[in-house]
């Protein structure tokens, strides 16, 4: 869980940094999109680097989902009889890891169909013109709602996930506790704010 999660987290940081290029106008954003396809050239052929990243990501998603399934099954089996007196104490982020993860998996499917393949894209999807595609998606109400909800889920998932990954890998101790918590909160906040800024910019007309 920890290793696959950190791979995806590393990707998210790169992803949000790339997304923010949208604020520098269509030329720069589209040029960035083009660069992703010629990354590593001339050593690598067209889109090889991109496909390499995609393969690693799919492997990470599958590994993450399989271990989450195994862990959940084990956890449910270990507490066959629930307590009659129920009370909630763990933080919201901690309690929503499982369902939050499922929400994120569904979001990723929609997100790829929307902005990578263009299958469910509203308006004319054009390969190689990501700026216009982003504006189209965030010009629909449901595009905004789905995206913003998913990004809030990302923030919550990262908040508990990053800190937990550090514990799993044995990095945590009493002295680093505050640092790790702060790092997890900062990562969650930066990712959510960075991603959400794009639909907000389209809605307010900053990006059009």
């Amino acid at each position: 869980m920890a290793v696959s999660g950190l791979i995806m987290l590393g990707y998210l940081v790169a992803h949000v940094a790339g997304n923010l290029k949208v604020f520098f106008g269509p030329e720069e954003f589209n040029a960035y999109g083009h660069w992703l396809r010629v990354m590593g050239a001339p050593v690598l052929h067209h889109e090889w680097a991109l496909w390499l990243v995609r393969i690693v990501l799919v492997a990470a998603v599958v590994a993450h989902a399989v271990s989450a399934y195994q862990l959940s099954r084990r956890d449910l089996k270990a507490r066959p009889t629930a307590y009659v007196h129920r009370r909630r104490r763990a933080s919201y982020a901690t309690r929503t890891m499982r369902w939050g993860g499922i929400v994120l998996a569904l979001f990723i499917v929609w997100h790829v169909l929307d902005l990578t393949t263009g299958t469910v894209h509203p308006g004319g999807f054009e390969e190689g013109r990501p700026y216009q595609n982003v504006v189209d998606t965030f010009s629909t109400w449901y595009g905004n709602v789905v995206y913003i909800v998913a990004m809030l889920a990302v923030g919550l998932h990262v908040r508990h996930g990053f800190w937990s990954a550090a514990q799993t890998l044995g990095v945590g101790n009493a002295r680093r506790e505050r640092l790790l918590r702060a790092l997890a909160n900062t990562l969650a906040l930066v990712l959510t704010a960075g991603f959400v800024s794009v639909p907000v910019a389209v809605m307010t007309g900053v990006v059009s």
Partner: protein
Amino acid sequence: MRLNLRVWRQKNGAAEGAMATYEVDGISADMSFLEMLDTLNEDLILRGEDPVAFDHDCREGICGACSLVINGDAHGPERTTTCQLHMRSFRDGDTIDVEPWRASAFPVVKDLVVDRGAFDRVIQAGGYITAPTGSAPEAHATPVPKADADSAFEHAECIGCGACVAACPNGSAMLFTSAKINHLNVLPQGSPERETRVLDMVAQMDAEGFGGCTLTGECATACPKGIPLPSISAMNREWLRARRKASRG
């Protein structure tokens, strides 16, 4: 004070259990929770009913025998053992739910008594040191740095009551196992079996059917001895280290 109790009653491990309601009167705020249950049992015996079975031994908070989930909290609302919980934590007329530890690795024996033999087997897998027996060795023969001694003492406080497992939404025994491993692994006396200890005890913990850890932190919150949550990370570190060493041969 007068209290309404809802207590888990179960004839034996194979029988179906249910919550039963009792009323107890004349409870003093200075009584411990177990003395309150003694009062209930005296009433039940006088009425010719079966008394409520619950585990207890030293009643001083050091043996780890008492094990009740009170209003959904392992050992109740105070951060202590059930025997050291006093009735002043409750108010006259309160309804109190009393349940046994819930985990598939801790099967119910009767009423509020569960079988915690799984913990004994985890200890047997490596929670000891191999040392020559005989008279006590000279105290200064093996120097121990202060920080290591403090860490060992902190983890040695674990009384093996099982509140961590009871509080964990996953029924995981990571906090207990980590306390036992860290206690010995930081000391020079424990270092000869440092790797086999963590590998064997974690393997036994898994084999007993405890759940996996999702770092909810409920265990450390419930622990009457204050075993800290980072102990789990320390155990993971030991485990990864031992695996690396084992793979190198």
